[in-house]
């Protein structure tokens, strides 16, 4: 099986990798690039644990091939903080304890960051619909939604 050579950008860094054509972007991120913040939940686009942005568009990395990343710009949960300084969403998730086991958290952080960049003043309903594809099986949605609403309010004040 011939491998495909891919050149892409992940979290601001230019990277190259060789992948099997069947490997997903999720496989590549975790197994080739050692970026294990992105989680595999269902592997079929239902749970959102593998959410990343590709050219600023929120997608499931399990529903995209690694080969499709050629020439793209990918952002994962590892690209959200600025060095040691956490993103306001990350700070709020800690403050609100908006997680239990944490496996859905990277996907939810990536998804909500994408939402707040598109809509800095979402209603609670808009946040809930936006996150409909991010499943938390610890049933922690209430704290997640409150953390997102509070982050949005803080970020509006700061800007």
């Amino acid at each position, binding site marked *: 099986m011939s491998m495909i050579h891919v050149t892409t950008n992940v979290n601001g860094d230019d990277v190259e990798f060789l992948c099997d054509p*069947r490997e*997903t972007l999720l496989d590549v991120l975790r197994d080739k690039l050692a970026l294990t913040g992105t989680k595999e939940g269902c592997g079929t686009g239902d749970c959102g644990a593998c959410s990343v942005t590709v050219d600023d568009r929120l997608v499931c990395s399990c529903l995209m*091939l690694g080969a499709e990343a050629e020439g793209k710009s990918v952002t994962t949960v590892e690209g959200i903080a600025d060095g040691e300084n956490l993103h306001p969403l990350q700070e709020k998730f800690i403050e609100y304890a908006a997680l239990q086991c944490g496996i859905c958290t990277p996907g939810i952080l990536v998804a909500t960051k994408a939402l707040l960049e598109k809509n800095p003043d979402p209603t609670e309903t808009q946040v809930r619909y936006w996150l*409909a594809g991010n499943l938390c099986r610890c049933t922690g949605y209430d704290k997640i939604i409150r953390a997102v609403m509070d982050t949005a309010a803080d970020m509006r004040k700061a800007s």
Partner: protein
Amino acid sequence: MQYHTPGSFDDAVELAANAEGITRFLAGGTDVLVQLRADIVTPDILIDVKKIAGVRDITREDGGWRIGVAVSGAEMSEHPLLQKEWPGVVEAMDLIGSTQVQGRATLVGNLCNGSPAADSVPAMIAAGAWVSVIGPDGTRKVPVEDIPTGPGQTSLAKGELINAVHLPERGANGGDAYLRFIPRTEMDIAVVGCAVNLRLDGDKISEARVVLGAVAPTVLLVEDAAAAIIGSTLDEAALEILAAAASAACNPIDDKRGTIKFRTHVAGVLAKRAAKIAYERAGASV
């Protein structure tokens, strides 16, 4: 599995026409990759069409729209003019999957996946949309309703692919709408779907198309249902005939998501509700 990224539709056709084994085209991948991962369909040859120029473009064409094969649902929802002219088509596409799925899923993928419950397909058929099919013998125009032939089956021949969806000119006093029934508010497959597209002459309906999804092996264009409301002001009597015609057209499966009796009844209810929304939208566009 071989992975190809042709630079033109001619190259894509040539690859597909000469391919041996299972061939799949990749646009959004939200069905193809699920089937691949679940070992339902493992293509020998995967042809990614996204490197072809223009496939991500929504452009004006003869007063209507040309929507490229790789335009995502999110890109359609973010297009204000498309949304204004064909709100039913845009809302139907927008109902598919999550925000993440919307970032990749396409109209053409939804059509070619061949699901009788595909949300965007009734809306496209109601709108009178057609697709351009490119193949070894050239390009042909095909109405959307002629593409699905059964669950998971299409009329496309070996080497053929769709390169765009074409929506007709909206024209004056027109409106469309799509509704589906699911047992929850988001992230589910239609138990019944219904799209209505109509045009008004004064307060009377002069043209209509009524289309049902998930109640037969293919999406159904129901002419009797359209006839029930053409010439009417969508009064109560016309709505009752519409509902009866929609229910009469149903030939659904019986499964855990909906019984035959339930789907047949809901088809009539949704037809009435979708017709009312389309009628309001057509009136508002005067």
